[in-house]
């Protein structure tokens, strides 16, 4: 866990001394148009910096799990069952002797991909509905917004559970279910933005100059509606990862040997009085993902997303 952050800590003092090279790990999430300002602002806010570094680490786990652990997350070793965390097994082992660190690294990949898939689904479907409802108005607007209202009535988790009962169990279905529950929020925000933009001079000019509706939507309305929607999407990632983990914890996600983070907590639950590490580490990883994404998203919100 310490290895990847070493490089970041080592480069940090040099960033302080002189204008930073844009290649440092802290600079990667920065928008390309202001490479100098963002890392320096990051350094003034240590919590935000920690959040960015943690998200980079987690992204590393998800993209290249084998770089971070050489162990097989499914390999059992009865002789090493329930070993405490130590130099050999950083996060300890479970009842079957599987290395928990390897399982967390590989599980992060499953949870993160599922969470991002869910947000992508809510974003695209919600944005499409909001765009059409807001721009075209009339009966379509009425119909779509009534539909959204009905979905809002049912609490998100319950809605996801109902969708999972239709689609069946499994990580992809859980991701879709969480995504469906997120659609109403995006549809509402996009619709509100579109209603504001529709009356603007540049849209009226485009209409007057004879542009077709799809072209106006794509070239004028959508880009201008994007910033608040993307902030909402960033804020939503943490919540989506949390919901996916909760559904997996309840047993509707990945099938047992697969190491999804919520499922790991559920498996560790049986050993809660003897092996604290089995629930503590996976839970901590989830909690930190949620905290870090929300901190980064709120920083984006405050600074204004570059368009």
């Amino acid at each position: 866990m310490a290895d990847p952050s070493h490089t970041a800590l080592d480069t940090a003092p040099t960033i302080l001394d002189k204008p930073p090279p844009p290649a440092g790990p802290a600079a990667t999430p920065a928008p390309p148009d202001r490479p100098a300002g963002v890392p320096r602002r990051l350094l003034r806010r240590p919590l935000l910096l920690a959040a960015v570094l943690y998200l980079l680490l987690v992204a590393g786990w998800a993209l290249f799990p084998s770089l971070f652990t050489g162990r097989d997350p499914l390999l059992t070793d009865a002789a090493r069952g329930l070993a405490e965390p130590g130099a050999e097994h950083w996060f300890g082992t479970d009842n079957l002797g599987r290395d928990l660190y390897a399982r967390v690294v590989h599980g992060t990949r499953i949870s993160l991909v599922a969470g991002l898939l869910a947000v992508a689904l809510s974003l695209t479907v919600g944005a499409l509905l909001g765009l059409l409802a807001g721009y075209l108005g009339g009966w379509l607007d009425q119909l779509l917004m009534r539909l959204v209202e009905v979905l809002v009535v049912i609490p998100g988790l319950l809605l996801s559970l109902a969708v999972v009962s239709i689609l069946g169990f499994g990580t992809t279905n859980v991701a879709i279910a969480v995504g469906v529950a997120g659609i109403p929020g995006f549809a509402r925000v996009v619709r509100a933005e579109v209603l504001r933009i529709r009356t603007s001079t540049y849209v009226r000019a485009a209409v007057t100059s004879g542009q077709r509706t799809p072209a106006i939507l794509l070239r004028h309305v959508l880009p201008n509606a994007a910033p608040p929607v993307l902030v909402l999407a960033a804020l939503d990632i943490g919540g989506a990862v949390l919901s996916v983990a909760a559904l997996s914890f309840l047993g509707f996600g990945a099938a047992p040997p697969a190491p999804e983070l919520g499922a790991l907590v559920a498996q560790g639950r049986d050993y809660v009085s003897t092996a604290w590490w089995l629930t503590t580490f996976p839970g901590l990883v989830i909690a930190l993902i949620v905290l870090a994404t929300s901190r980064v998203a709120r920083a984006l919100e405050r600074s204004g997303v570059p368009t």
Partner: protein
Amino acid sequence: MTRYVLVRVVNGVFVLWAALTVSFLVLHLVPGDPVSVMLRGAGGEGSAVDRAAADELRAELGLDQPVYRQYLEFVANAARLEFGTSFRSGDEVTAVLGRALPATLELAAAALLLTLVIGVAAAVAGSLLPTAPLRSAVLSATVLGNALPSFWTGILLLQVFSFGLGWFPAFGAGTIDQLVLPAVALALPGIGLLAQVLGRSLRTALAEPYVRTARAKGASRLRAVTAHALRNAAIPAMTLFGLMIGGIVAGAVVTETVFAREGIGRLTALSIGAHDFPVIRALVFLAGALYVVVNLAVDLIYPKVDPRIVLRAA
């Protein structure tokens, strides 16, 4: 006012009808045949479902009728609060829900009370504490409460307070002792959210001239908050609190699973696992009805808190 309530009730009935229709469609969107899913779930051998048994069950559940008749019957029955029999236990759905309801009501009431008391206290502390570091510490704590996965905090609470310190029993329901840990686990996310929203509007309210006037006339900081700012800052928090009640019922799915309590939440998880559609539909209806009732209640309370708000039928 009466006209307003009337319009809202009609609107609420419409929303409930739509929610019912959506949950009716749930059963008919299931890939494959619910009857064979049920028979397989009941312990049949793989996909080899006995045709005669399937037909019999289908007739018993009314699934051999045309879809529109099933739909009309379903809506008519739902209006009388009859949802048929549970696939899983074979009991009346209403009876199944009735058995599970008390445990969840107890848990939800305790969690809402905790949310209200601690959430308001944290918001007030966040704007009253003497130094900025203390205030931001309270703020960070509320963010934390909202971000922690509730299934994990439940287990942490068990580890520390049941297995570690032995203060509270780990499982079971009925006594106050057994209620404390689940209620805390269920309330934590809501506490964080309420404290953040109320704290934000409190800070806005505290910058208003009437607060300065009150302070100039000798009101203490505490009194300026409790007697002047709090009521003016309450409206957004009330809206949120109304929305949170549904969230608490949904959160009970996780909390009751962690603490092995037999309530609506546990029933939901088990029914989803067993594809018990009559129960799932009744649960969706229940959640919708709760939302409609609570939101109407919150809207009717607004003018009591802020007399400037006038309810008008749209």
